[in-house]
C-alpha cells in the first residue's frame, strides 16, 4: 500500500496567477511551486492522497507517460518532505487509524 501524503497544516498557502505560494508561518519562510507542482499541491488540498492516485491525476492532466509522471512526482515529494512542507503517513498508520 502507498504512503499517504498530506500538506503540513502549519503552513499557509495562496494561489497567485495559478501558482502556489507557501508560507511557513512561524519562520516567515516562503516557497513557490512551478505549474506542475502547483497542480499536485492543489490536488491534495482537500484530502491526503496516495502516490498512485496522484500519478493518475498527473497523467490525466499532462501529456506524459506514467513513468515520467512518477519520476517527477518522486523528485517533487523528496523536496517537499525534506522541507517539511509535506507529511507522509506510512500505510501502517492508516490501518491503525482505520
Amino acid at each position, binding site marked *: 500500500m502507498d504512503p499517504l501524503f498530506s500538506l503540513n497544516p502549519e*503552513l*499557509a*498557502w*495562496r*494561489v*497567485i*496567477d495559478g501558482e502556489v*505560494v507557501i*508560507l511557513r*508561518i*512561524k519562520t*516567515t*519562510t*516562503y*516557497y*513557490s*511551486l*512551478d505549474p*506542475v*507542482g502547483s497542480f499536485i499541491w492543489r490536488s491534495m488540498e482537500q484530502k491526503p492522497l496516495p502516490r498512485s492516485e496522484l500519478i493518475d491525476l498527473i497523467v490525466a492532466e499532462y501529456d506524459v507517460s506514467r513513468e515520467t509522471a512518477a519520476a517527477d512526482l518522486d523528485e*517533487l515529494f523528496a*523536496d*517537499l518532505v525534506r*522541507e517539511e*512542507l509535506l507529511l507522509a503517513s506510512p500505510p501502517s498508520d492508516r490501518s491503525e487509524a482505520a
Partner: protein
Amino acid sequence: MIVEMSREELFSKLERKAVPHMAHLHLTEKCNLECVHCYRIGLPVGGEMSTDEWIRILNEIRNEGTFQLTFSGGEPLVHRGWREIVREACRLRFRYEIFQNGTVLSEEDIEYLVSQEIQELHFSIHGVGASHDRFVKMPGAFARAFPKVKLSVDAGIKTIVKMSVMRTNFDSITELGRLCEEAGAIFAPSYHITPRFVSGNDGFLADRLTPAEIRECESRYTEWTGRPEFSSCIDEDHPEMCNMGWSRFAVGPLGDLYPCSQVPESVGNIRHTPFRHVWRNSRRLNEIRMQKGTEISTCKSCSMLSSCRYRCMGQFVQETGHYDRPAPHHCEVTAAWLGRDDIINGVFIRGAA
C-alpha cells in the same frame, strides 16, 4: 520544482503583479484611551462593520492572495466580535498580528490568542507609570497594561512594546526599554509622529522630538533595543516610493479601502462591493499606484536624497495633503540622521552642505 524565497524576493514578485499581500484592518475606531499623538482621533465611530462582514472580507482577501494581517483600531479588542474574526483568520491560515493597548486584554484573551496561533502581539505603551498614564489620558493604564506584556511573553507569543517618543515622554525611554528587556519583550521606540487624519487640534506636533533628540535616539537605539536601526517600510528595490496600493492596503471599520493605513484617502468601499472589484478597478487607486517610481520634483536635487528615509507617501499625505510633497519636518529628521546642521527654523536649506 520548489523554490525557497526570501521575504524581499516574494514581496517584489507579488508587487509586480499587484497582489494584495499585506492588509491592515482597523476593526473599529473606538478606543478606551485618548493618546496624545493618535492620528485617528476624530474619525467616526458609528455604523462600523459587523463580525460577519469582517469574516466575509477575510475570505475575499484570502482568495486574492493576502497572507499577512494586522488587526488594529482604535482598540481592536473593543470590537465585540474580535475573537470570531481572529478564529477565522487562523482558520484561513493568515499570518496575523494585533496592535492593542494592553488595558482591555485579559489573561484568558492571551490564552485564546495562543490557541489561534497569533504570530505577534503589539502593545502601545508610551512610558512608565504616570508618564504613560498622562500620555494616554487614563489613570492606572500602565499598571493595567504592562503586566500583560510578561504574560504574553511567557505564553510564547512574540511580544513587541511600541513607544511613540515625544518630548513629553522622552525621559522614559531608558526605563521602559529596561522593563521590556526584563520581561523578554521586543522594545520598539519610534519618533514618527504624524498629524491627525481629521484636522484640528494638532498642537501636539509641537512636542515632536527636536533634531538633536532624534540624533540621540539614533545613537542609542541599538543600546535600547538590541536592533541596528529604526524600522522602515521602504522598498529597497524601488527606492523612489513605497509600495502602498501595490502589495499593501488597509480597510477601515466602515469598509473603506485605503492604499495604506497611513493614508486618509479612501479609494473605494468594500462593504457592499467585492474587494476584488475595487482593488482591480478603482481609478483613484490606480492613479496613486502610478506615483510609485516617479521622481519627487522637490527632492530630486536634494543632496540628502540617497539617505532620506521619508519616501513614505502616507507620511507625505498626512503632513502636506499631497502624495509627492515632503514636509519640512521630514527634511529636519533626515538632516538629524545625517548629523547636519543646515536647518534654520525648521526649514532645510537645500544644498547648503
